[in-house]
């Protein structure tokens, strides 16, 4: 009997590993090994025909820190994150509160909010290109009605990044709305009734009851928005290509440019390592601190 139990246990261990092996092999091939390789190749110089690649330690990082484009893209990305995260969250919350209230044509309102979410970023960029085109674009035409002159929204360093930010917010707010909407629907209606009986104003009810109850959702949405602020760069390829003079260039776009435009893999790798580090810290904060409070299962 004991032998049978041990046999059964061994069999389960074997099956467990067998079932996991495809996932583990693939994760190793396309996530873990590439991460390690990225770190490794960031320590070597770029090989040319004359100078073969050699170990340079932190050389690539030093080059990066001395590169003015690097500090430019980091600042740009901080602005990008610093604006898109809170603004998307606030708009998403407003959308959810409205989409949850008893207004006429609620179905249309919800659809209108959510639809941009399912478009590819490239399509969204093409659509907005029409708005930003100087002279002919919709924004300029509206501006002309009020007597403003033509503005080259995408071609001016002061406005290019903002034009990119607006497209990102347009694309992601509706996505975050659905999480708020779902959370709002789990708030027991007695709370609203009790608040009404007490004569609480709607503002107080929202601020003191609804917002605290939505906190876990806000954290979830914020982590997602943070990740998006690293990875949502597709529209740059259509709208600005990072220009003019790097004014709208973001980190991931710069990685792409370093590796596939300038063929400077080691620099690209060094920058990737830094992004991975930031994402790793985010992951640690999320798993260690936040998930203790908002625990699944």
């Amino acid at each position, binding site marked *: 009997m004991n032998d049978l139990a041990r046999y059964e246990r061994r069999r389960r261990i074997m099956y467990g590993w067998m079932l996991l092996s495809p*996932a583990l092999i693939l994760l190793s091939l*396309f996530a873990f090994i590439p991460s390690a390789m*990225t770190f490794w190749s960031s320590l070597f110089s770029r090989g040319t025909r004359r100078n073969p690649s050699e170990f340079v330690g932190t050389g690539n990082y030093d080059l990066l820190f001395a590169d003015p484009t690097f500090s430019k893209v980091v600042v740009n990305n901080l602005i990008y994150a610093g604006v898109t995260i809170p603004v998307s969250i606030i708009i998403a919350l407003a959308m959810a509160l409205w989409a949850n209230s008893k207004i006429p044509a*609620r179905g249309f309102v919800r659809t209108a909010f959510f639809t941009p979410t*399912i478009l590819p970023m490239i399509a969204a960029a093409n659509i907005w290109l029409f708005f930003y085109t100087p002279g002919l674009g919709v924004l300029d035409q509206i501006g002309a009605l009020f007597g403003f002159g033509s503005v080259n929204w995408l071609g001016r360093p002061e406005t290019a990044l903002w034009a990119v930010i607006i497209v990102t917010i347009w694309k992601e707010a509706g996505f975050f709305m659905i999480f708020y909407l779902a959370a709002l629907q789990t708030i027991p209606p007695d709370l609203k009734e009790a608040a009404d009986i007490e004569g609480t104003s709607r503002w107080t009810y929202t601020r003191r009851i609804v917002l605290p109850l939505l906190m876990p959702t806000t954290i*979830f949405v914020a982590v997602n928005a943070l990740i998006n602020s690293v990875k949502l760069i597709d529209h740059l390829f259509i709208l600005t290509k990072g220009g003019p003079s790097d004014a709208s260039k973001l980190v991931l776009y710069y990685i792409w440019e370093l590796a596939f435009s300038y063929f400077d893999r080691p620099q*690209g790798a060094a920058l990737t390592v830094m992004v991975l580090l930031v994402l790793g810290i985010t*992951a640690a904060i999320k798993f260690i601190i936040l998930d203790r409070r908002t625990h*699944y299962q």
Partner: protein
Amino acid sequence: MSDALKSGQAPLYVTAPKRSFRPRLTLALDTFGAWTLAIVWIAPLLFAVWAAFHSTSDAVNFNLSGAWTLDNFRTAWDGAPWMRYFLNTFLLVSVVLAGQLVVTTLAGYAFAQFQFPGRDVLFIIVLLQLFILPEVLIVENYAMVTRLGMFDTVFGIGTPYWASAFGIFLMRQAFKSVPKELDEAARIEGCSWFGVLWRVYVPSAKPTYLAYALVSVSTHWNNFLWPLIVTNSETTRPLTVGLSLFGAPESGVNISVISAATIMSIAPLLIAFLLFQRQFVQAFLRAGIK
């Protein structure tokens, strides 16, 4: 309140809903705010649709009475091998989804129902991939795909997404909620571990599969950066990459034609979404929250 009535006490509050001015004003303000935002939000898309059906001069001059035309679609369609791009995207989302379903089902099953040493550590390692974004690893993943001889193939674009940590997590959650008794009953009936998985776990996780499939298909239909990097020819390039090449300023195509091409390439997903809106939203929710 019904308890209070049963016990014979007077109910504490019997308030008829107040028909005062204030709630109606709030509703009017809410309606106004919601509608304004909704119109602002959908306007860019509606405008693109409208522009796609009008001549460029009508579109840029907002000539609302301009004649409707299909010319832009004709020009756009002739300007690039769209049929091929559609086929490529279709193949791509199928390859990605098929691989993901197999890999995540097996791994989710192992994490949910098998006890073995090191399991929890492994699970955390898998979850780490949620943060090691495939998008960030483009440099080395490109090298890896090339090394494996998959550059410029549908599998080259798709395989890196097969072991989705997110999918494994979803499947694990779904399988964990299957009652142990069902599993045991099936085993007593003589089912192998695969039989149990196929007959008990997979059917009971249908809603999760549907949700995951919708999220996966719409993500990969829209994916751009990675396909841009690992494709090099018409025969593998998906719609998004094709669209970006078509709309590039260098190609000198006018705005109405770009709108037509854009509308054309988003149409299948957009129509599917409008028809199955509830399922889409439920899918994103289920995938996001669980």
